[in-house]
């Protein structure tokens, strides 16, 4: 049994302008010790998916359906008390913005030990000792003295490391990291990614990494879900997604990325803007921006189907496989030729 199994998850928000379909039928699963990367642009529903799993959406405006089975137990129907038990101890989350996720008026040490004392019956002293241990693990110098500092006394990268320490304090089975490195410099990003990898090895936790950076995904994910406009456009093993991408949106994402290892005069650009989820396009949601659009794309929303002779690789696009293989090969060849040209 998978650790977490998400089936046909939908989350709609009621707003004054109408219903926003933030997540519209997303399924995936994560096994123990695995890393799942969820990629997509802003507004594609990556974060809402995870907030829904954690039960952190506003009860007033959000309506969810589908299921999110955590070790067989549906999180969507779990009662709030049970959810509070799971959150922070079994499933932990690292939020995107380290500047606002810590409480500015409490000492780091208090915030860390609170996370532990809420879930386990430990003394203040024990919790404090554990906090020191974790701060040390995430590479904060002189942790015993830094415990009594306030968040503003830490730099951005260090605050993010404190957030990671906090999320790991109860040895969670699943760590959800929502763009943990987006606000950081590459050097700090490298520190954080190395840290997550190391901790994963040590504790055997599963990780869901939400990001818009294909580079980050390529480096740490085992499985990848590409999201576009609240739906899954493509998913598969990381090798499948990068070596044989099957969706025009994935091609666009890859082509629009300037790379260190390839020289291209012009980047492939995806025309237009991501759609508003108040009024998503009919048929395939990517069709207004897709260079390969066919009449059927405007009418029928493609199902997520398996790619033949590539088990585990799913994609949602009407194009025939022959064209896809050809275009994917062309895209990758373009990158390769750039590589030799440089």
């Amino acid at each position: 049994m998978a650790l977490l199994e998400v089936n046909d998850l939908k989350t709609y928000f009621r707003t004054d302008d109408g219903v926003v379909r933030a997540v519209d039928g997303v399924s995936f699963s994560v096994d123990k010790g695995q890393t799942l990367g969820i990629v997509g642009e802003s507004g594609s529903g990556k974060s809402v998916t995870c907030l829904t799993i954690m039960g952190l959406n506003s009860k007033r405006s959000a309506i969810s359906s589908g299921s999110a089975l955590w070790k067989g137990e549906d999180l969507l129907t779990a009662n709030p008390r049970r959810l509070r038990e799971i959150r922070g101890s079994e499933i932990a989350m690292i939020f995107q913005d380290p500047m606002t996720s810590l409480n500015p008026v409490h000492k780091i040490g208090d915030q860390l030990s609170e996370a532990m004392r809420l879930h386990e019956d430990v003394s203040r002293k024990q919790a404090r000792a554990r906090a020191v241990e974790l701060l040390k693990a995430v590479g904060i110098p002189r942790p015993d003295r830094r415990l009594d500092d306030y968040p503003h006394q830490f730099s951005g990268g260090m605050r993010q490391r404190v957030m990671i320490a906090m999320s790991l304090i109860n040895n969670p089975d699943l760590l959800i990291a929502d763009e943990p490195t987006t606000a950081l410099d590459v050097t700090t990003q490298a520190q954080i990614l190395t840290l997550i990898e190391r901790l994963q090895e040590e504790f055997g936790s599963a990780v869901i990494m939400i990001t818009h950076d294909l580079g980050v995904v390529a480096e740490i994910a085992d499985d990848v879900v590409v999201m576009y406009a609240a739906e899954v456009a493509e998913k598969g093993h990381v090798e499948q997604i990068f070596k044989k991408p099957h969706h025009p949106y994935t091609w666009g994402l890859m082509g629009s990325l300037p790379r260190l290892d390839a020289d291209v005069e012009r980047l492939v650009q995806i025309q237009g803007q991501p759609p508003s989820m108040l009024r998503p396009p009919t048929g395939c949601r990517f069709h207004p921006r897709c260079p390969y659009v066919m009449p059927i794309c405007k009418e029928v929303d493609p199902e997520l189907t398996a790619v033949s002779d590539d088990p585990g690789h799913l994609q949602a696009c009407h194009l025939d496989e022959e064209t896809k293989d050809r275009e994917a090969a062309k895209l990758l060849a373009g990158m390769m030729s750039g590589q030799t040209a440089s």
Partner: protein
Amino acid sequence: MAMQEEMRQTALELTGDELLVAQDLKKYFPVTRGIVFQKEVASVKAVDGVSFALHEGETLGVVGESGCGKSTMARCIMKLLEPTGGKITFRGQDITKLSRAEMRPFRREMMMIFQDPYASLNPRKRVGFIVAEALQVHKLGTDAEIKRRVQELLEVVGLNPEHYNRFPHEFSGGQRQRIGVARALAVNPKLIVCDEPVSALDVSVQAQILNLLKDLQRDFNLTYIFIAHDLNVVRHISDRVMVMYLGQVVETADRNSLYQEPKHPYTGALLSAVPVPDPTVGRGRKRIVLEGDVPSPMNPPSACRFHPRCPRFVEGRCDVEEPALINRGGPASHTAKCHFPLERWPLTEAEMRTAGTAGTTETAA
């Protein structure tokens, strides 16, 4: 000290036809204590001796971590901040000491594109006004001419000219950044300083803006100073690249030279930290993880400012003697500020660390 000063100067060989030259540019922000009698107790050396020359039609990329002084440097060049020391020459004319009024004709020649497309456009003004403002300030044409020009500009940057009367909130992030580009282009500048113009945008939209900037450069022979922390983006758009660390330039070279054969360990660490969107390549290689954070520019480390974080740190040399920014092998225009430059690239982690000793014997020989 005097010798170092000289070296900095000689590193810059001027031919006289540069569009912009910055020599030993410095910007210190005072740190004061006390309320009534403010006493200067220290200074933040945000930019500390930056020199470079820029030719017409060229793109200079500037990279570095946050807090390394990239943006302050850009604002000094634009004279939005008064430099503490050094000299800025634009088209052969010293503009360092010019007053606001004297500066005005130069403002037409140099424009800026800002990072945050949500904060850099006045939400209460219509797009037409925002783009036209510079034209009106410089009195370039009658109202009708200006309107025609603005519509033309909107079209150039790929917006619908009909949207002249809309407000910024009606546009998406990428479209707003296009408005920012149109505003910068309005007065036909020579130089555009782009301060992280794409870092707030989604990748697909980022590619649109990068392509647009490249097209405009070709069509209007523009010169860019392109500031970014994303090394991929800088590589894509730049001809020359300058790497900054704690207010100083640590390495500068032609794009290919810098990315293929970085000399400074800091550049090496930056390059190795960039995630590669290719699972086989990305996992095979080793990230050089720098320990710790960027030190405070209020109290920078002695000698080489990178030494507390440097994998090749040699005690008694790097913390005592400041290296000069000179050629350390490779093409003549490739300069690095390091006693123990990288011998080749890529290096294994062990080589990265131990080569410091190999370097000593090399320099001794």
